[in-house]
């Protein structure tokens, strides 16, 4: 799987590159700013670009802007945004642009849990979604939504993992349940929230996020 990295801090860029190589990914370019990212992606046409939100020269949200631009100029390249902080505003912008999936937004902290991170990288590169648990908890934590109160604690856990973009198998693994049990919970949630059932994991994320007011 071919990957381009855009991260301005050399320490993190090299560490991430090594981590990905060790896990069998092919890092075809590692760059330090948004312009170089766009050039590298248009030249290499990789499967995935991992982009830091904050890049030179103004250290604001250049990375996100470049990523949004790439979604239209190079739609076959999936985009995984990594950042020191998460805001649901950015997640909303990213998902609104994503269309058919292949986007992710994670805290850099998640890289430490290497297996999970590698899983998220694979998921996004193959057209899925990966949304940081912190974004999801921001959205779930908003007050004033009656139907959410009707969910059981287990269903809330399943809902959060669903919003993160995980598949039923992934949810079953994380919660130590059988896939069948997860499917039952999912059906229960969709019924209680009156959401239309959807086939792909990405569509499911969009439906859940739209419900939570984040998509």
């Amino acid at each position, binding site marked *: 799987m071919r990957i381009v990295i855009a991260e301005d801090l050399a320490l993190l860029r090299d560490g991430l590159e090594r981590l990905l190589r060790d896990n069998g990914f092919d890092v075809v370019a590692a760059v330090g700013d948004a312009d170089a990212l766009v050039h590298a992606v248009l030249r290499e046409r990789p499967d995935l670009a991992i982009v830091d939100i904050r890049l030179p020269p103004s250290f604001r949200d250049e990375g996100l802007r470049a990523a949004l631009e790439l979604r239209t100029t190079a739609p076959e390249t999936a985009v995984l945004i990594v950042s020191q902080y998460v*805001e649901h*505003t950015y997640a909303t912008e990213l998902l609104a642009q994503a269309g058919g999936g292949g986007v992710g937004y994670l805290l850099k902290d998640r890289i430490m849990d290497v297996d999970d991170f590698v899983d998220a990288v694979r998921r996004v590169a193959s057209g899925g979604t990966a949304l940081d648990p912190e974004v999801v908890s*921001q*959205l779930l934590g908003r007050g*004033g939504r009656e139907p959410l109160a009707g969910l059981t604690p287990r269903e809330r856990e399943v809902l959060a993992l669903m919003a993160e973009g995980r598949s039923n198998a992934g949810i079953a693994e994380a919660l130590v349940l059988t896939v069948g049990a997860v499917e039952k919970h999912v059906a229960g949630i969709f019924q209680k929230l009156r959401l239309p059932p959807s086939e792909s994991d990405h569509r499911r994320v969009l439906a859940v996020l739209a419900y939570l007011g984040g998509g």
Partner: protein
Amino acid sequence: MSLNPYANLVRARTYRTLLFLAAAVPVGALALGVLIAGWTAGPLLAITPLVVPVLLAFRMAVGLVARTDAGLARGLLGVDPRVSVNSGGRGFWGRGKAVLADPAFWKQQAYLLLRMTLGFATAVGELALIGGSVFWILEPILYRWTDQNIGSWHIDTLGRAFVVFPGGLLGLAVALALVRPLGRLWAWLAEALLDETPSRAADARRAQAGRRRALIAHAGVAAAAGAVVVAVWAATGAGYFWPEWVLLPFALTLGSHAWVELVAAQPNVLARLRLSRAPAIHAGLSAALVGALTGVWAVTSRGYFWPEWPALVLGLGVAAHAVIRLAPRAEARLRRLGLSVAFGIHAGVWASIFVFETLVWALTSRGHFWPGWALLGSVVVLAIHVLVERGAGRERLARRVETLETSRAGAVEEQDAERRRIERDLHDGAQARLVALGMSLGMAEQKFRTDPEGARRLLAEARTGVAEALGELRDLARGVYPPVLSDRGLGAALDSLADRSPLETTVDVELDERPAPQVEAAAYFVAAEALANAAKHSGARRVSISVGRAAGGLTVEVTDDGRGGADPAGSGLAGLRRRVEALDGNLSVTSPPGGPTTVRAELPCES
């Protein structure tokens, strides 16, 4: 708002309002004519079909007079009532019925009735009060030449003249204090009785095309009527050329109309000539009037050139108007000389008066140069003006310096407190965690060969420690400056704040453009601190944050439904107050026992 009524003397709005009040005289006279004609002709013809055209004409006349007055209200009072002149309806009788059923028609008549009764009375009363007061104020100068008496008491010495002087000051104060309420009353009446809002949507271009058509129609009608009159004159023996008396007013009205239309429709021409619209219209109309009077002089005796007098008076009005309009433009130049716009207007008006008096002197006897005395007087008055202004300026400056010293000291103190807090958080939090992490890693290294299972446990512990340290650093960084605030502005930052709050928080931000970064940051931290306080101390369940613009500034208001009783001098609120005051804003906290608590900050944002 100043409580000093004399401050109204230097406000253009005062003169605009007075002008509107005075306009009640001509408008009232016009309205009287129209109403009498309509009310007589209408009932008289009520049994004939002729009543419909008369009614329609009456409707239009009432509408046009009302519209004229609405135009005055727009220019002078700043309200913009849209007046309809047409009641609609279909067919001959239908249109007549529509007029009678049109509430706008009756409201316009009511307004005109008020304007010619109440309006006339206020105009006369207010202007007489001002005139009388000014006369009494000038009495110490004028008593030699006038013979004023109150009852049997003659004002014929300087001492007695000074007795009435304070009465004059008081009268002037009352008259000036009345100007604003009267202006508001008439603005309200005009809006309430004249405004027909549905047509507000009519777009400007259509209005302009309509005005141009109106001008062409006016010119056509005037030319046709003039031709008819001349034809009648020619047909009746062509003696004395009496049509000149018809043609002159035609020319005057058409010229005035054309000038107003030109000025209104061609703002570029005015901009190139660096003229403002109102003085240009004023000057043009004055010139047209002088032209018409000169015409009258030319077709009559052609003896003594009397139009010079109205020309002089009108010229004085135009000069004063121009001075009032031009002085604010010269503000920078005046300020370099240490003078204010008010002084510029004052001096300019005196200069115009002096020129006027000199011309009057030149046109009359040319004996003793009496305008010299007026010049002397005005120089004294202007000198006093400068002295008073300098004094007031110095005092204002001293007060400002005092405020700035306090707020700067507060801001520095606040910054130091903030730095100490950050240092403490770093020291107790992330730094301590990294030390512990280093220890875990060291021990893991030691155990690596002998106890691989123990080493793995230590490494897992270390990873948890890193995650916690990162979380703490992130919170700290957000507390110093939330990145989303600079990236996406106040709305997104407050949304994010609301998401993280344990309370049910609503955010309502109404801003047309982003304020300056320091204002945004202050607004954000006011909301953040108030929200944190609400969560910590108030026992509230719901909080609402609203941000909006008011009076050239930005306001932030945070209200919770908690138990109230917050201490405005508490450290968090005091810190906020210093932050807000450093930006020249102010912070108010109302928190009665039992709630609710409202924290409100007003932040000026100069552009």
